[in-house]
Structures are given as structure tokens and as C-alpha cells.
């Protein structure tokens, strides 16, 4: 494990053709990493994520991906992902192969991957058409009472990127708020990059070991990148920038406007710090607009035994 810049973490661990999972279910979406991958010009990625959201819409518009594995396509609370739709419906900027599950199917694939199981069983897909278009959805009979359940195979991305609130310098990572499948994808992936709002002293993590979701043992690179999830959010650090989610709906409907946006906000900035400076230049109230108030957890006593 080493503490790295986002540039170096991506350069070292994300390669052309990799299967990449940037997870965080509707929260903690690491746009900073996606933009760095776009800037570094990665190609032929297999993008894995339950909810592709704007982050994969942008990466697909930038031509990074050849395939996407997912369970729900949408701009949450707003509407369609227009770049994904252009790629699927019209092959713009390039054709995009899709491999599709329900949410539970994706969760199960990650769990099988994390647990090194050849399959994970779930009661889903009965009566539905997904198994007809996805050979990875099969059915197995129980040896106990003859009950039949669906099974899906493990998903083991080459690299997973997880955004979180804090980690110690060894990479022991704590997350609070929506936990999604971050733990599962970290255990399932061959390499793990963790991007945090804060790197804290080991004593902070050790004061609350039940809150640690990802052990440093799994982490190949730890990146300190405040506001790395904007326009998504990090619980307790900043709010989702809903204005941008609405604006993207407009921008992304048009291919040229989309490319112009990428030119300005991704290719046109050097790194996340530059992006934030530019953003605050445009909107000086940004921090104030998105800063949440304070709602602290009440402490618990682990006790001193010694």
C-alpha cells in the first residue's frame, strides 16, 4: 500500500482493457477518478457499476469503454443517461456492449467475487426475460427440497475505486452513510484504490473498529482528494450538487455540447484541485451551498481492558 496522487494511482493501477468498478450506490461516486482516467486516455475498459450514473455517462462519452456491466441506467431523480443511450442506440462515439442484471444480481456477483464462490444463489429472475439475454444467469436445484433458485457467477474486477470519508495512512477505511457494495467490490477486485476526504491518524480509526469497512490489507493505493466525489456527495462532508445533475441532463442530450463540456471541465483542468478552483470561480457559494450542518454520532464506549 502506498499513499499516492490520484494521477499516479490511476497511472499505476488502471490499464487499457481493464475491468474497472467505481462503486458507491447513489453516493460517494468518485468523479475525480473518472476524470483522471479520461484525461489519461484509457481505452477499451469494461465498466462495472450497479448504477452507471453521470460518472459512466461521461466516461462513455469520452470513449473510454467498450462494455458496461450494470443494473440500473439513470440520472437519479432526473431522467435518462443520454450518452449511454447514444452509445447503445446509435454507437456514438463507439458501440457499447451491455451486460445487465437486476440490482440483487449485481450484489450477488460482487459477493461471489469477494467470497471466492463459483456462484451466488438468489431468488430472482423467475418469469422475467433477463436470463434469455444473459447467459450468466442460470438456475440451480437445491439438494434439500428441490427448490430452484437463480445463480450468478463471481465478478472480480481488475481494479476497484472506492470513495470514502476517511482512512488511516495504512489504508484502513471508514465509511458512514449509504454503504452500497463498497466492501464487497473491494474484496472482489484484484487491485483497490481508495480515495478519501481525509487521511486521519490511526488512533481515530482504532477508536471505532466496527466502523472500518475496508482493511488496509486490500488497498493498493490511498489517495487524499477532498471533494473528490463532486457532483456526487460524501455524507457529512458535502451535499450532492443537484444543479449539476439537472444541467447534465441538458448538456448530455447533445453530443457536441457533451464534448465541449469534457474539453472544458475534464481535459481543460489539470487535476481535481484545478477543477475545484474553476468551479468556485464560477460559483463562489459552492462550499456554502453544499456544506451540511453538523449532526454528530453519539460516542460509544469500547472500554479499556488491560
Amino acid at each position, binding site marked *: 500500500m502506498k499513499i499516492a496522487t490520484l494521477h499516479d494511482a490511476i497511472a499505476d493501477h488502471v490499464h487499457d482493457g481493464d475491468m474497472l468498478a467505481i462503486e458507491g*450506490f*447513489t*453516493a460517494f461516486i468518485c468523479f475525480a477518478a473518472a476524470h483522471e482516467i479520461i484525461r489519461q486516455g484509457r481505452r477499451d475498459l469494461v465498466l462495472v457499476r*450497479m*448504477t452507471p450514473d453521470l460518472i459512466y455517462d461521461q466516461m462513455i462519452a469520452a470513449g473510454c469503454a467498450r462494455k458496461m456491466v*450494470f*443494473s*440500473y*441506467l*439513470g440520472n*437519479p*431523480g432526473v431522467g*435518462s443517461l443520454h450518452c*449511454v*443511450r447514444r452509445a*447503445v*442506440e446509435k454507437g456514438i462515439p463507439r458501440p457499447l456492449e451491455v451486460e*445487465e*442484471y*437486476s*440490482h*440483487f*444480481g449485481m*450484489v450477488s456477483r460482487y*459477493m461471489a467475487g469477494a467470497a471466492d464462490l463459483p456462484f451466488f444463489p*438468489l*431468488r*430472482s*429472475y*423467475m*418469469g*422475467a*426475460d*433477463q436470463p*434469455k*439475454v444473459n447467459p450468466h444467469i442460470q438456475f440451480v436445484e437445491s439438494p434439500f427440497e428441490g*427448490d*430452484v*433458485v437463480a445463480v450468478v457467477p463471481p465478478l472480480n474486477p481488475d481494479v476497484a475505486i472506492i470513495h470514502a470519508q476517511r482512512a488511516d495512512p495504512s489504508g484502513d477505511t471508514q465509511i458512514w*452513510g*449509504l*454503504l*452500497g*457494495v*463498497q*466492501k*464487497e467490490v473491494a474484496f472482489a477486485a484484484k487491485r483497490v484504490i481508495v480515495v478519501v476526504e481525509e487521511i486521519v491518524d490511526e488512533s481515530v480509526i482504532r477508536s471505532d473498529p466496527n466502523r472500518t469497512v475496508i482493511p488496509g490489507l486490500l488497498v493498493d493505493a490511498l489517495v487524499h482528494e477532498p471533494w473528490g466525489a463532486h457532483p456526487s*456527495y460524501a*455524507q457529512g462532508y458535502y*451535499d*450532492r450538487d*443537484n444543479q449539476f445533475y439537472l444541467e447534465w441532463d441538458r448538456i448530455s442530450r447533445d453530443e457536441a455540447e457533451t464534448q465541449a463540456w469534457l474539453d472544458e471541465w475534464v481535459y481543460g483542468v489539470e487535476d481535481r484541485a484545478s477543477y475545484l478552483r474553476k468551479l468556485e470561480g464560477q460559483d463562489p457559494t459552492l462550499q456554502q451551498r453544499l456544506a*451540511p450542518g453538523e*449532526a454528530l454520532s453519539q460516542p460509544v464506549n469500547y472500554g479499556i481492558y488491560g
Partner: protein
Amino acid sequence: MTEYTPAEMMITSSARALAGERVVFVGVGLPNIACNLARHTVAPDLELVYESGVFGSRPARLPLSIGDPTLVSGATLVCGMPDLFMYYLQGGRIEVAFLGAAQIDRFGNINTTVIGGRSPGFVGRYEQPKVRLPGSGGACEIAIHAQKVFVIMRLSPRGFVDQIDFCTSAGHLDGEPGGRAALGMPGAGPQLVVTDKAIFRFARDTGEMYLSSVHPGITAEEVQAQVGWPLKVADGLKTTVPPTVEELRLIREELDPEGAYTGKGE
């Protein structure tokens, strides 16, 4: 009588159907407002479970997505997706769930995956669709496990079709009695479809959707014109009771004061 929007009609109709329910699986938008209205009226003990893993939420503002951080702060329990799908949904803890649909057929089977397409055949249509929709999300398994499913969608000929292009979430299958149980589907399937023009229910014996009530000013003929199969109509077709003054006050003053979901005349 007070004026109301079609969205307000859909919200109050959905809320009333939650009378006496305990645990509801909820998305944002109209279902969210409907569930909160129900908690203020017919179902004070209603627990809202969000697909994002949030239980017992007390949002300080109207949530704009199921991932809104306002759902988390002050909730009673927030868990990861494995727990949510394995223990809450598959474990049979969800009584009612709301689903949306791009297409629905007479048996309540739902498509939210693809529409049409250039290639011949089923798989080809899937691979080269005319319109790529969001896909399942959790809907496929919600439709299997929730004890009851309520569908909220607008009434239109594109939506109410004789043959859906893709079955994302199974309803009453081909209507054969016991068909769901035979496939190992624990929930009872779709019970209610709330639209901007009318409300539909499903016949217990045939699993077929029938027109249960029309909203004030709408006729059964107008509804049939929007539905792609010969629609069965309830004996003694009723007119939907419009939103009461108190329901409208709750919606407008407390639940969606900025009219984000209800004010655009949706």
C-alpha cells in the same frame, strides 16, 4: 371542490391504498410523497424502506433521489445492499412496494428495459433497441418478493400494451392461477395500478387487470382508448374520490412545498 393536479390525484390514491400497511419499499418522487402522506393519514405506523439501504428515515427535506443524504441523517438503520436484498427483501420483510413502468400488460408484467428495435427476434431487439430504458434496478426482485406491488404510471397507449417488448419484472405471468407460486415467487404480485386517469386492480382468479375506478370527468371509454387490449371493467365502476382538503394541505404545505413533484401538472 378544490382544484388538484393529476399528480396529486395519483398521490392521494396511492396513499389511501396503504391503509393498515406496515413496511413499504419506496422510490422517490410520487411514491415517496404518497408514503409520507399515508403516514400522516391512513398508516401512521408505516415504515419506509429505501432501496439504498435506509430504514426509518426522517428526511429534513424532500429527498431528490433514493440516494439523498437527507434520508440517512436521523434514520434508525442504514445497511449495505447485501443486507437490504438478502435479509429485508428476499427475507420477506417488505409488505408493499411501488414500481414504475414504461410498458405494462394485462397481467401486470412490466417492461423497464428496452422498447422496439431494428433487429429481428427477441435477442436482437434487446441488443439494438429503439429506446434503451433504465433496466431493472431492484424491480425484478421487488416484483417477486414484496407481498403486494403497487404500480404508478401515466395512462397511455404506449404504456398499456397487449404485448410488452421485454419482461423486466414479472406480474401475474400469463394469468394462470398459481403460476407465481409454481415458479417460487413468494409475493402476491401487482394489486393496483394508479394512473393520472383511472385506477386498475387485478382479478383474483384470472390475474387480469380491470378498470376499478375512473377519476372525476373521465369515462371508461376514454380509458379503453388508451389501453391496448379489450379492458375488463368492474361491475359498478366507481369514480375515484378526489383529494380532500386536508390531503392537499399536507401535500402542498408539508410534503412538497416547492411543488417539485406535484406542481407541474404532471
